[in-house]
């Protein structure tokens, strides 16, 4: 399959930067870089590091919950663990990872030489990075003047008034607030950058309706960032005013409102889910067509569904608040809007199946992860429908059922999508192939672990187990389920280790990939692997959604049909 020569000749820039230069110089290059590919790699690696840290936190929690009345960690530590786990995974693992993928691929896919604002790009990365460092610095600095607590223990959505000075003494909550505030600035910068790049930097012939699906999904993601991070920033500022300047926005002891915090947080929090899942949808929409050897089914409606999801996702936030005692009309409204989002999501699933239908599917590791993600999105969507029926949510909300549901989305779809992307674009980024044998081990172990953990996690929720409890009574009958859930973690951890090993080994030993190892169709495969600085020697002219298909099949080009 592999093409020996890039289809478009690369821009030859003397590569004297690499090679035997001293480590400090190389490090310096990376730190001051404004190159979208390097920043993409940095975002991605930073996210993976956070993923591992957050994963360790999760594993300790699962060890604690594996048996009833366990004393492995104290309640205080457990509360810090779930706070740090949630915050780390959402803000410092998932977001940097999807930003990394967007940064690396957006210019390559639309035929641009870099992002629109390279310096802003670097600034955004470092803001995000510092945000995470500040959050983790709480372990050292959180004792503050009062010697109370270290890491924050208010939960990742930090409901008021637990965060008010009366209930959260010391500075741990401040590290949480300021860490998120700062990383939020970075996210806004990235959102702005992706948006501008897509609107202004497309190469010749790359019309909006010829953009690869991943680029479309990333632009809707960028739009959601611009809309959703604002409320979070505002809420964090108000909280800071409460904590340092004697404000009373959320200070219920002085007449503040706990519910206002919930609104602010979830107006951010729900679109956030889509900020993370849309790029994953984008990955599936790139990988599935290539390995089914067919174009994406229903491109136009896929784009329309994406835009619809983007808009509807702004009007569903209070489904996180079905239990706060809203009126029956408000509850009914959010049932309607939340269920409505199932329609465009369903359309996406159907179109992925439509893409595979009639194709010739090769099950590379990348494809395996993508197909599993489609099936898991189906299940996550259906448990989402269950949660969207407000009365059902009065039972399921804040129970382990919800935890299982959103981990199905975040692991089952987003992380599976990211793994798929990791196998699919690894040859482009490093110039070498990853081992498929190890890849299959990674896939199957992760799949088994994932289903052991998150399928069985629904059950204790149905049996009345609330989230965020550090232990439970044996008489509740939850132990068996929790043990199974915890054992699954071992498989997942093993799988991730295999992946890290595979990526490291392949970097040095992997088969040379060539520019287009998958016989793919989008522009990033037209340049060498890894792409040279500034990506393209001459900007390729695009006449359809699959420019490389046109080049490879001059007798039957796509543009005749679009």
């Amino acid at each position, binding site marked *: 399959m592999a093409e020996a020569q890039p289809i478009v000749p690369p821009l030859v820039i003397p590569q004297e930067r690499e090679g035997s230069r001293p480590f400090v110089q190389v490090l310096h290059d990376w730190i001051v870089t404004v190159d979208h590919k390097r920043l993409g790699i940095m975002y991605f690696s930073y996210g993976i590091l956070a993923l591992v840290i957050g994963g360790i936190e999760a594993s300790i929690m699962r060890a604690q919950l594996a048996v009833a009345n366990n004393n492995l960690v104290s309640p205080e530590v457990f509360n810090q663990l779930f706070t740090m786990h949630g915050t780390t995974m959402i803000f410092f693992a998932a977001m940097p990872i999807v930003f990394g993928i967007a940064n690396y691929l957006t210019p390559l896919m639309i035929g641009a030489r870099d992002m629109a604002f390279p310096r802003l790009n670097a600034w955004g990365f470092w803001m995000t990075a510092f945000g995470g460092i500040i959050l983790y610095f709480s372990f050292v600095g959180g004792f503050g003047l009062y010697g109370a607590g270290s890491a924050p223990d208010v939960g990742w959505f930090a409901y008021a008034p*637990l965060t008010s000075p009366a209930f959260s003494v010391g500075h741990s909550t401040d590290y949480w607030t300021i860490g998120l505030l700062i990383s939020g600035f970075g996210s806004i910068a990235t959102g702005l950058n992706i948006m501008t790049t897509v609107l202004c930097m497309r190469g010749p012939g790359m019309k909006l309706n010829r953009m690869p699906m991943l680029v479309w999904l990333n632009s809707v993601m960028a739009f959601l960032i611009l809309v959703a991070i604002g409320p979070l920033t505002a809420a964090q500022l108000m909280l800071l005013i409460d904590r340092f300047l004697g404000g009373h926005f959320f200070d219920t*002891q002085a007449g503040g409102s706990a519910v206002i915090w919930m609104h602010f947080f979830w107006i951010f929090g729900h679109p956030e889910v889509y900020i993370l899942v849309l790029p994953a949808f984008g990955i599936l929409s790139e990988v599935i067509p290539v390995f089914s050897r067919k174009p994406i089914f229903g491109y136009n409606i896929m784009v329309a569904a994406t835009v619809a999801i983007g808009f509807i996702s702004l009007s569903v936030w209070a489904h996180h608040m079905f239990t706060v005692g809203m009126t029956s009309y408000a509850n009914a409204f959010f049932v309607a809007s939340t269920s409505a989002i199932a329609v465009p999501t369903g359309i996406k699933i159907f179109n992925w199946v439509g893409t595979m239908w009639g*194709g010739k599917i090769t099950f590379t590791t990348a494809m395996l992860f993508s197909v599993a993600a489609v099936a898991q999105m189906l299940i996550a969507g259906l448990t989402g429908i*269950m949660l969207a029926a407000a009365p059902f949510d009065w*039972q399921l909300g804040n129970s382990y059922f919800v935890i299982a549901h959103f981990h199905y989305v975040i692991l089952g779809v987003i992380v599976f999508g990211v793994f798929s992307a990791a196998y699919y674009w690894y040859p482009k980024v490093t110039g070498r192939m990853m081992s498929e044998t190890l890849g299959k081990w990674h896939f199957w172990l992760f799949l088994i672990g994932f289903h052991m953990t998150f399928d069985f996690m629904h059950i204790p929720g149905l049996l009345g187990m609330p989230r965020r409890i550090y232990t439970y009574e044996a008489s*509740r009958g939850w132990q068996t389920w929790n043990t199974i859930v915890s054992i699954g973690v071992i498989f997942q951890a093993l799988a991730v280790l295999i992946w890290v090993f595979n990526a490291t080994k392949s970097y040095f030993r992997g088969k040379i990939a060539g520019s287009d190892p998958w016989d793919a169709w989008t522009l990033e495969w037209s340049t060498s692997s890894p792409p040279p600085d500034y990506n393209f020697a001459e900007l390729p002219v695009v006449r359809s959604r699959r420019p490389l298909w046109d080049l490879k099949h001059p007798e039957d080009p796509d543009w005749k049909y679009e």
Partner: protein
Amino acid sequence: MRSRNCEWHNSTLRNLAKRALLGLFFVTVMGWGATGFALGPSSTPSIFSPDSTPAHDIYHLSLFVMAVCLGIFLVVFSLIVYSIVKYRRKATDDDREPPQIYGSNQVELAWTVIPILIVVVLFLAAARVIHAVEDAEFPPNTIEVTATGHQFWWEFQYPAYSFTTANELHVPVSDGSHPTPTHIILLSADTDHSFWVPQLAGKIDLIPNRRNEMWIDPKVPGHYVGQCAQYCGMQHAKMLLNVFVDTPEDFQKWVQQQKEPATTSDQVAAGRKVFEANACMNCHTITGTISHGRFGPDLTHLMSRTTIASGAAPNTQDNLTLWIKDPDAIKPGCLMPAMQLDEQDVNALVAYLMSLH
């Protein structure tokens, strides 16, 4: 107490399995709504064994929603499996690309319209139950209770009978011939909490500066369990809910007893003196005495409760002693301080507390 729980637990699991199977059977074969009979309380508070109208309505809705979801799952999952099995590349395949299909408007229309119809139906079903539960009317003999969440215990006030108790809620059974639902006002003294007894009703949060409400009308007497379902601080995990559904006679008896001031006797005067000479009285109320604290649970009829510290430990002499010496030994991080009393004072105190029937 523990061993009884264990027996419950086993039979519960069996019941659960039976119910799950039955539920599935009814859902798939006979359509929704045929199940739903009261089995009584269980130590595993499954949302699928409702014993009170709100939980029951939710249960029915949930069967319907799950049946729809199961249907969708079977159809779409089969499509996925079929397509990856049927269209995988075979060894005999040549190198040619498969036919390039770009889409189909008819198919797209079908898989847009059908889901919209399903969503409309689901919305109507949910809206009906929202209305039935949230906008319910109450008969005049409804029992009123005000539940206030504290870090990390529950306060229950019965305004009509003017007494206060803690952690263990008693309500009368509400059978068809004498409906006596209980209407619960939910308040919070500090952070958010959530009142969740799955067999009786869905959860509703207790939020400071806000008045929420819910109602239950349990059909079968017995001991229902649940717990706080909104993270409220260090000991959120040990903020258990115990609801005792009494027969009307038992409930009246219980109310009469709770309305009485605390019993006093000379035998425990020493303990009472320790209680009143220490900060105990600043945090706890014992009616009929000078103790009027409201920070901790009302202790007037402490011994009428089966557990202490919101279900953290059975209410026994040993546990009371340990609790007074070092509350953190039972519930680390709870808001009652260890009072550093000497052995003699502790024993006197426990004797006093044990006299509060």
